[in-house]
């Protein structure tokens, strides 16, 4: 694996955030490392390959179908993808279920933890819910009195 294209293609499709948003978190290298460490080379390659295909497709039903068929319903890739989504949204890795571990082996990196202070602050959930990470990126005095911002999903 060379560049992060596969990882980004996968991440964009899974999170609903575009490349620029994901890059600008500064978390791409750390998250890619985390995913690869738990997935192991064979599963990481499969995800990378699918990510490449996803990256080439325009957003829409084709992307959704590919994700559901090839990733989410796959016994090995599904749990990895769901943990990757939560990693992006919360900065926190969610460990693999037991049957996954029985098939693929336990990994040292597969523990529940917030990857870094940056990962916490860059969790996508805060933007998604129209707020800001608690304890970071404050919105300014009195912002809480304003009408909540309207939805901006593309």
């Amino acid at each position, binding site marked *: 694996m060379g560049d992060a294209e596969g990882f980004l293609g996968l991440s964009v499709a899974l999170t609903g955030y575009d490349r620029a948003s994901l890059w600008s978190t500064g978390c791409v290298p750390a998250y890619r490392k985390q995913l690869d460490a738990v997935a192991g080379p064979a599963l990481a390659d499969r995800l990378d390959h699918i990510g490449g295909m996803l990256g080439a497709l325009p*957003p829409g039903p084709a992307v959704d179908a590919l994700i559901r068929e090839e990733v989410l319903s796959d016994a090995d890739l599904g749990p990895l993808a769901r943990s990757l989504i939560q990693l992006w949204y919360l900065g926190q890795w969610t460990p693999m279920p037991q049957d996954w571990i029985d098939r693929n082996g336990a990994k040292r990196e597969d523990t529940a933890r917030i990857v870094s202070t940056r990962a916490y602050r860059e969790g*996508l*959930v805060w933007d998604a*819910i129209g*707020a800001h990470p*608690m304890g970071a990126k404050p919105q300014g005095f009195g912002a*809480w*009195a304003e009408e909540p911002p309207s939805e901006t999903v593309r």
Partner: protein
Amino acid sequence: MSEMHYDAVIVGAGISGALIAKQLAAKGRNVLILEAGADGGAEASTYRSYVDAYHLTEVKVPNSPYPANPSAPSPSVLDVGPIAPGRPDTAGYFVQNGPNPFRSNYTRVTGGTMMHWLGTCLRMQPNDFRTRSAYGQGVDWPLSYDDLAPWYERAEWEIGVSGDKSENEFGGIHFSKDYDFPMEPIPKSFSDRWFEEGVRGMEVALPNGETKTLSVSTTPQGRNSTPRKGSYKVGGEKQPPYGAAGATGAYAFQGQRCEGNSSCVPICPIQAKYNALKTLSQALRQKGRVEIRSQSVVSKIETDGATGRVTGVVYKRYEFPGAPAWEMKRVTADAYVLATNAIENAKLALASGLCPTSGQLGRNLMDHPYVMVWGRAPRPVGPFRGPGSTASFPDFRDGGFRTKKAAVRLELANWGWNFAANAPYSDVARLVEGEYLFGPELRARLRDEVQHQVRIGIMPEQLPSALNRVSVNPAYRDSLGEPRPVLDYAVDAYSRAGVLQGMDICQQIFQRLGIENRSTYDPNDPGYVSEAGRGFVYFGAGHNAGTHRIGASRHDSVTDLDGRSWDHDNLWLVGCGAMPTIATSNPTLTMTALVLKAAAGLERALEGKS
């Protein structure tokens, strides 16, 4: 081994200890503060490390930012488990005899528990000082609202409270004409105003025949907004215009106005919220000499058997937090002040055999057993922005129903179901692991789910009871050999009935505003209790109080009005432990008023001597 003799030795560097030090040092006194915890954020790098630790912990509870310190352990809300009859729960720092678990915590670091308080600064109402005569419940205070009013004013200026007089004149609370809060009110949140609009004119008929008209009042808060222009009379004395206290140490460029970090509990990253480090740093700038020794756990207060006077304080100074090694030291002073929080004050005094006459020491432990009601609003209300709470329904803080049921304050929350259901973490997990959502749909659903979250907190008063108490037992010790607090605690039928009435009122509000009720209470939760066949889960509010109450007589109270021990002429006990009853207001403002009064009394006593 005795060293320098001080005018006063203060045990504990929380707000109580810091304030006494500041007041005495202003009069030129030499003061030593002994503090059990480590450094505590006085250094900018330490404060920063607290914020980082908060960001990094998965389970974000009040003590998350502060390093676990076995040499001066703190209780954690995560330690609380079920208690089997006859078998105390010893899993955490507390030894809990039950029957109900005491669910509150405190923090033993320099700065104390105010590092992670929320900042709510309400006064008690006149009737709260006389519940025995008015309602036949609890005890009357040895002073009235009017007696305490000038001290409330000073307390509000010490903490730096942002508030609005007109919205806080309810239940008999009144303010002097030429007085005002030092800072303009913190704006109500969007959701506060949505509730306010929705309940306008709404009447609630209570089962006892009383009818109340709902109102939403802005909460006075210990966080910086904009200082009021002009000068006011505070405690009867003309004051120059208020200057806000910024952050301490190298952070001094921060801590100006609250900018909405939405993490006041467990830590305000910019120190816009008041914390006791601010008072400590002011104490150090007074003309007297204030010395702070941290990592110094006071172990024993020594007394003269004949006179009852305190003769010295023995403390354990440890070099490395967690290592079971320490040096025993002793200091002496003219006056001694215990300011270690209601539970630790009682523990330390009991372990030293102090204050025997009234038999009240350690008894009457109170808190606000905090119950939550939550739901989905019919429109987005913008949660997870700003301070944790900026307004409440004050209408049930007093009333004739108090003969039978606890008064309650209904607090509006700004952080959705964060405390109630661990939102937004639980929302992400549910949508991803349970509904298999991803991509734009996940994003949209998250927004929809969280934007509609509303929550009300019910804070019932708890009556003083001799059975709710702190005690010590040599069988239970920490790693320094110090006794661990042993707690007996129950949430009685009076508080429970008040909670149920509060829950009914919340449902009426939900019905009126079209909020879907989503509250659920797990019967397996250690805080699950029931009354009249209805169950709910209570939490702790951190409002530990009552263990060394003030009073008019040595026979039913531990100290006099000024916190001076009836049994030991040169010993003061200060903090929320001084409060005879807890009412429905968060206790720290009332406590601060009492601490300032105690400091004045202590200074008078020292003057009498010198």
